[in-house]
């Protein structure tokens, strides 16, 4: 099997970043349709991204803001006396 140039992988990454010129994008797409190896590579990258984005959001304890406010240094408090 003939090895594809490394520039294909660079193009794939630029494409994933929305950063590939239109002309090169056309060439890349037609290459991916013909080349199983590169298509597989592209597909695995897309899958990795989808998995990373699928991780559920973690939640912070409810009194977080109060804890931060309580932990702030107090030297500015004179202002509230002036109000």
């Amino acid at each position: 099997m003939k090895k594809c140039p490394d520039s294909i992988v660079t193009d794939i990454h630029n494409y994933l970043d929305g950063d590939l010129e239109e002309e090169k994008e056309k060439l890349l797409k037609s290459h991916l349709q013909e080349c199983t190896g590169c298509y597989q590579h592209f597909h695995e990258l897309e899958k990795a991204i989808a998995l990373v984005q699928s991780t559920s959001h973690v939640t912070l304890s409810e009194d977080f803001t109060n804890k931060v406010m309580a932990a702030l240094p107090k030297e500015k408090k004179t202002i509230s006396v002036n109000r």
Partner: protein
Amino acid sequence: MEDLIKRRIKQLKKGDQDAFADIVDFYKDKIYQLCYRMVGNAHEAEDISQEAFIRAYVNIHSYDLKRKFSTWLYRIATNLCIDRIRKKKPDYYLDAEVAGTEGLNMYSQVAADVVLPEDEIETLELQGEIQQQILKLPDKYRSVIVLKYIDELSLKEISEILELPINTVKTRIHRGREALRKQLRHV
């Protein structure tokens, strides 16, 4: 919302400490999300988030109102995470593996006596596995991947947060993505 935050920052700069509560409320989840994905431990992530807000408060006078506040805040939080990772003893990584799924939404909602349906367990295991793989990335790749895919920031913002040229950010994203591709291929 951005306007409200701008107003609160101005109040804060004048010395009104209470104005800071709205700022914390608005950004806390994003900052926590970033820290959790960087360090992989819920308790530690909360600790770092708190420190990030305290630093922002203490240094608010060095924040330039013409710049985006979130970029400035993200930079403080990211630097704290990276410092923490670098200071770690080598056994930290073992520790993080145990803590992989800790703090995930679904976990915290489940009461002790409730039996999880099979597919929910699988989802949790999968998410723990993905978090493990994110934690395996070297910190320079992990930070760009987390900022791009979990916080959904643009390359330009990431380059401002990390104070790196945009081309370096791109290269790191490419390499981080390649590493994840190999690690997650068989998931």
